[in-house]
């Protein structure tokens, strides 16, 4: 028996060793930095990849968990208003989150709704820091996260994944794929749910008030989200490929009420509805040249779902016949808060030119429409931006690449801006690569930043105001990195400096600068308004190590970050130098994986993951404590038959049960619930061969090079 086992181990190690070269060195294909496919090792722009294998081993329940667990640059501080993702110290409004190259639409306070992404349907994630690519405009100041979804072209595919975990956690994914001739259809349904949890029942109160020790507020509230999506593709063979897709999505965040009107009473839940539709295609021109076209429409609507009678003061009375300054909503009714609609048209061509040049050129038109009956003067606002860009990838020598790009942006309110980018890569030896880059970013204020007005109740009323006088933000990003790879070991060391001008952030203003009528109506303890901070800079260094030895894979990463923002204080007419909210100087991640095939029918994966962060800085309401969290994950791949496979995942998150019990109202280092358990099973039935081994994606990343 032991002999058989030893033989099996030996055989499998051999198999895994070959697999290793493919999976774990730099053979991964990436697309995000240039919009054209490159092997990771040859990518002109430094790109971080979270592979499908890593995703599977990790067994993450959400994009938040995946990014915070497997990459060092990210942090989150989830609450009802969003994930509050930061990348290199900068918030969501500076991070461009793409799904298959298309930007995610819809935000609350600048934070995208990450539940729109089905974690079971992610093929891999590519991360590019800074405004490094000419392909992306507004938002990509801190960087780009490109989520590449799984593409299916089996004759018949049926899959179900159900993952359950502590605190009523449920993640459900169902896929149905069907191919008939050149037509291919994939239908996806996903559900995400948690009952939420409460790390503390203590509220941060005034020192002269009785303490509140039995607050009903939760650290994370209960929520349920669901999404149905359909994608239809037509493969025109050598001529190209066309697709149409659509999705609908809903989400509700449930909020409990306690007995302290000042702290834990809520009269409404939050509800979201999202819908999207896209069509596009790719025409091959021969000689590896092609043109792509995409048209995309998406709406993200945000509602209050009232749970008890609620008077609102800023009701749109234009259609009404009753002139009270209040409008009563009854329990069970909903009121639209914002409806963000975006239409995106884009076209791109990639052409091979003489002398080792590859030219990409494209145009993009984006129209944003914001409807917010009670939060925007007149109830609506809109914005459009048109851009053209050109990028050339030039290999003057086989060991040297220069990629230069220029993006010309024209915004109907903020005029014209050109943003150049250049990156170079030099393969000093086959094992050693140097990369460097400079890129400019440009970001116009969003309709919300310009026009929005809303009130939040958090230990007192806070009034938030848009600002029609905002200027566009711009950035200069410099980076340099070194990559050394030898025999399963990959080391990367890099540094970056991101200088932002006219950075937009919420600043506390004196109440007398706010409209009298609003002050009389809400009597806010603080009024905060979007303003251009004069300057900000973020700089830091990253180190990462990936080492494959036998069945073991070790990943370790460390990021250092510092930020300096010169914030103009209108009240004092002085410049204050502050750290950007939420930043931590030191962040690290660690993982050790062991993957082993015991037989062709059973593979085991074991993984130990750690992530850690030093103190997170905030200007008000206290700093977030440093933390470290560890996770143990197992995966069991079982092959039932030629058509049927099972994959079982089970693990423990936050093994050492670290819980940040800082009272509600103050900042947390992590919102982790403490030690939690999860288990899931993926059942997958396929029938019929896959079509030609071509990468099937929509959009700009399609290529025939492999």
């Amino acid at each position, binding site marked *: 028996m032991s002999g058989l086992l030893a033989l099996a181990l030996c055989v499998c190690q051999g198999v895994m060793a070959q697999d290793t070269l493919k999976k774990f060195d730099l053979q991964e294909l990436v697309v995000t930095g240039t919009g054209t496919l490159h092997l990771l090792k040859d990518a002109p722009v430094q790109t971080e990849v979270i592979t499908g294998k890593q995703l599977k081993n990790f067994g993450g329940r959400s994009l938040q968990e995946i990014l915070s667990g497997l990459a060092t640059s990210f942090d989150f501080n989830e609450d009802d208003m969003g994930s509050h993702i930061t990348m290199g110290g900068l918030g969501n409004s500076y991070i461009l989150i793409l799904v298959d190259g298309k930007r995610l639409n819809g935000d609350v306070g600048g934070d995208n709704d990450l539940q729109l992404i089905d974690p079971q349907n992610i093929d891999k994630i590519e991360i590019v820091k800074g405004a490094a690519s000419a392909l992306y405009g507004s938002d990509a100041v801190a960087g780009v996260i490109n989520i590449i979804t799984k593409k299916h072209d089996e004759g018949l595919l049926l899959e179900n994944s159900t993952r359950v975990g502590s605190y009523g956690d449920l993640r459900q994914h169902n896929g149905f794929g069907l191919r008939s001739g050149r037509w291919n259809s994939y239908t996806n349904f996903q559900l995400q749910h948690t009952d939420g949890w409460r790390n503390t029942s203590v509220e941060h109160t*005034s020192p002269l008030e009785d303490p509140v020790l039995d607050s009903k507020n939760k650290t994370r509230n209960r929520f349920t989200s669901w999404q149905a999506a359909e994608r239809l593709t037509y493969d025109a063979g050598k001529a190209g490929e066309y697709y149409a897709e*659509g999705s609908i999505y809903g989400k509700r965040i449930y909020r409990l009420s306690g*007995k*302290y009107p000042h702290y834990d009473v809520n009269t409404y839940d939050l509800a979201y509805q999202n819908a999207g539709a896209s069509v596009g295609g790719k025409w091959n021109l021969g000689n590896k040249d092609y043109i792509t076209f995409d048209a995309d429409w998406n709406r993200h*609507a945000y509602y209050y779902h009232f749970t008890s009678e609620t008077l609102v003061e800023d009701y749109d009375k234009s259609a009404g016949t009753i002139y009270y300054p209040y409008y009563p909503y009854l329990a069970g009714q909903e009121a639209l808060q914002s409806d963000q609609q975006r239409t995106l048209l884009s076209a791109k061509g990639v052409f091979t030119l003489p002398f080792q040049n590859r030219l990409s050129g494209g145009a993009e038109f984006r129209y944003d429409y914001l409807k917010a009956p009670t939060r925007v003067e007149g109830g609506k606002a809109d914005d459009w931006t048109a851009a053209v860009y050109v990028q050339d990838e030039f290999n003057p020598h086989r060991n040297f690449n220069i990629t230069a790009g220029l993006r010309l942006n024209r915004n109907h309110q903020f005029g014209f801006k050109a943003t150049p980018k250049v990156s170079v890569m030099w393969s000093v030896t086959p094992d050693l690569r140097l990369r460097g880059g400079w890129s400019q970013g440009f970001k116009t204020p969003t309709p919300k930043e310009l026009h929005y007005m809303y009130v939040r*109740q958090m230990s*007192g009323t806070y009034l938030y105001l848009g600002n029609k006088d905002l200027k566009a933000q711009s950035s200069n990003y410099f980076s340099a990195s070194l990559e050394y790879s030898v025999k399963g070991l990959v080391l990367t060391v890099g540094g970056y400096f991101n200088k932002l001008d006219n950075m937009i952030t919420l600043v506390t203003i004196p109440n*007398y600068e706010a409209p009298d009528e609003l002050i009389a109506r809400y009597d806010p303890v603080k009024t905060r308004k979007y303003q251009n901070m004069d300057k900000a800079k973020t700089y830091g260094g990253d180190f990462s190590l990936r080492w494959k030895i036998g069945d073991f894979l070790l990943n370790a990463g460390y990021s250092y970050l510092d930020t300096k923002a010169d914030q103009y204080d209108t009240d004092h007419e002085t410049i204050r130098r502050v750290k950007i909210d939420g930043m931590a100087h030191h962040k690290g991640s660690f993982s050790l994986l062991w993957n082993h095939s015991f037989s062709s029918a059973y593979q085991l994966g074991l993984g130990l993951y750690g992530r850690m962060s030093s103190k997170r800085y905030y200007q008000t309401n206290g700093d977030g404590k440093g933390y470290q969290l560890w996770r143990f994950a197992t995966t069991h791949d079982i092959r039932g038959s030629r058509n049927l496979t099972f994959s079982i995942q089970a693990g423990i998150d936050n093994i050492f049960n670290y819980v940040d019990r800082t009272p509600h109202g103050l900042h947390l280092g992590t919102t982790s619930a403490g030690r939690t358990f999860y288990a899931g099973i993926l059942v997958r039935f396929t029938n019929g061969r896959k079509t030609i081994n071509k990468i099937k994606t929509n959009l700009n990343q399609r290529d025939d090079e492999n």
Partner: protein
Amino acid sequence: MKTKFLLIAAAAMLLGLTSCSKDSEKSNYSEYQKAVNNTVKAQKKHDKAILLVAFGSTWQQAYDAFDATVAAYKSAFPSYDVFLSFSSAICINRAAAGENVAPRNFYAPPFWLTAFAQDGVKYSEIVIQSLQVIPGEEYTRVINYIKDFANNSNGDLDDSYLSKVTLKLGVPLLQDADADVNAVAKTLNDLYKDRAASNVVAFMGHGNPDSYDTYKANIRYTQLEEALQTYSKNYYVGTVDMMANFKTNVLARMQANGITSGTVYCHPLMSIAGDHAHNDMAGDDDENGAPNEEGEVEDTSWKCYFAAQGYTCNDGTQIVKGLLELPSVRQIWMNHTTAAINGEPLDYYHSKNPE
């Protein structure tokens, strides 16, 4: 086929997202009003009513102060039904919801007034008493509620009732620049003269966040300080929102009077001790309130600011009491109610925007 279905579903969803119709709007108002009507009907014992109008709060201490005020009114005006109204929607909503022992229904003034005019109630006299401190913007809103009511703005009230109902308005605490200001100064001095004998007693009012004299109201704070200083130079009156009368200006006036050290007692000059008293006056802040060119330090409480300026100012020197919690000050409001009852009724019928 599936795509078609999804597109139809998406279109149906879009259609479903249109805002509420006029019908549902009317039914919402009538359903909400019904609850207010029932509350009034259930509590009606007399032919006359007093409606106390405050901005509102979400603090327990404020609820206690309001409850005590209503009780004092009931005992002082035994022939009147007494109701309390908040004008802030957020405060109304939060007080009514949740797991409170008893839901607190501080309906907004227009709903109370409409309920007072319903069949079966129809009070012959309605006295609206402002619980504001100064006759500023808040008070103007109160007047507008009464005008809307008197003029049947929504056309849903009985015009013949409106033409004969007696409406009376009790004015804010510091309405009169002489009588009220002097009465309040005397009362506060009676309460705090021991402390003011050798320490600073700094009152923190709200103030209107606009120009100095839009409502001719902000000046009451200055007048009150002048009146208090006839008793002692240790009394000061500053505000949260009034230009040129922030805590920094209070400090400057203290220094001009030669007070550069010692103990500073802080006291809200607001009807109740809520957000401003707990945050702006007695809150703990990260910043230490260093002086600057402009004057005000937005993110620092009075307590932290005066402590940073070298005075003894700490939790022990914060007198976190609203004026309604001081029976002798509350009595001045009640005197205004008595004066309103004894005075001429309002002539607001067809008076809205008389210009």
